[in-house]
């Protein structure tokens, strides 16, 4: 492909208009099918747009989120937007964030496993997280009782602005796994004796 030095690339404008009007991240394939262009061409235009939106002093940024692209406000401007519409934010409670973190890192995970890890009943919180569409059912575990398995949703990625799950913050590994001999596989769901 030739160097796209074209400043006023119409594709870039089209991209901006479409990205601007979407309330969800748009995947490359989706953009391609809308504009009917080659992937390299699309990527070039996207690259130009990414640079424009990375300019200092801008209030918005073009980000890769949940496998797609989305224009979002920059987090430092949050106070002003909150002022614009006061009623929009609902915080996750500490317990909800904790549960969500375990689900995110351990997925797929059963409720029994969650509760073993947290040490407390978590049914209500799981329901809340599902109501907020941060968590979804991903299957049933192949053990007696066939308990439901939970995982994070695509909205979870959007919620925290992650490209994918690999962008989750790293967890500290145990200091020295040899120091304690631990049962690596624990029986959570079988006889319920844990």
């Amino acid at each position, binding site marked *: 492909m030739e160097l796209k030095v074209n400043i006023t690339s119409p594709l870039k404008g089209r991209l901006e208009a479409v990205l601007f009007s979407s*309330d969800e991240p748009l995947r490359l394939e989706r953009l391609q099918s809308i504009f009917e262009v080659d992937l390299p061409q699309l990527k070039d235009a996207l690259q130009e747009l990414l640079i424009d939106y990375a300019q200092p002093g801008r209030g918005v940024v073009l980000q890769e989120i949940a496998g797609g692209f989305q224009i979002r406000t920059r987090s430092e401007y949050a106070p002003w*937007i909150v002022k614009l519409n006061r009623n929009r934010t609902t*915080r996750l409670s*500490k317990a909800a964030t904790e549960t969500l973190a375990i689900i995110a890192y351990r997925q797929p995970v059963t409720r029994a496993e969650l509760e073993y*890890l*947290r040490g407390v009943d978590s049914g209500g919180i799981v329901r809340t997280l599902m109501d907020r569409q941060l968590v979804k059912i991903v299957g049933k575990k192949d053990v007696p009782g066939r308990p439901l398995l939970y995982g994070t949703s695509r909205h979870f990625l959007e919620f*925290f602005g992650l490209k994918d799950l690999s962008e989750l913050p790293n967890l500290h590994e*145990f200091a020295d796994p040899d120091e304690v001999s631990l049962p690596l596989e624990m029986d959570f769901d079988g006889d319920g004796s844990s």
Partner: protein
Amino acid sequence: MALSYEVKLDTFEGPLDLLLHLVSKNEMDIYDISMSCITAQYLRYLEQVQEQNLDVASEFLVMAATLMHIKSRMLLPKAEPEEFENEEIDPRAELVQRLLEYRRYKEGAQQLEEYPQLNREVFVRPETVNTVDDGASSAVSEVGVYELVKALRELLKEPPEPIIHAVVKTPLSVADGIQHVLQCLRQQQYLPFRECFCAMPQRDEIIITFIAVLELVKLQLCKIVQLNQHGMIYLYPSDAVRSGRVTSVDGIKSEYH
């Protein structure tokens, strides 16, 4: 020592959180927890909760029992090798494992908490309401199975009005009923009344058929015969009906309906 601090009750997410707090408060090595010390402090915490007339969540009590169990096992003389195959396993091992894991996830949650969150630090274009029912749009987005359960649960919470049932399911008029009975009676010497119905009749169907039969009796197109009290009811069609000369009754439609 245990009395030297007050614990705020709502600070802890659960027994593991409390234990972790006690471990770091006493600057213990998490791999070498003093069971007697931590158990005493843990129980003291539960007492404080109870002193304030608050219920101690059962999870905290379960953990108290676990702690005391571990403590007692630590005090036991070393078990006979044949009695405990894994006699080298520290009684605290599982607890330590749980605490380590819990700490890891707690840290993970704290980091996650600091991430910019949608509609808290970061905003996107306002969602345009776009729920389409008419099938015009091609794709359907991620709807979890959970949404299905939720929808059904909500429906079942409010049992529907039975009246709607009847309204929806009334396909028959009395004229239809008469026609149906006449058809049943054709070529019949007599007919058990219940054979005018299908195996599992709807209530409205029963009523309409019953009215239809009364109407036919009034028009002298059939007779009702019961051989004994509580016995089977039979319909005896007139000749005109039996031979099929009469297959419908005019004027009924306008009279009923």
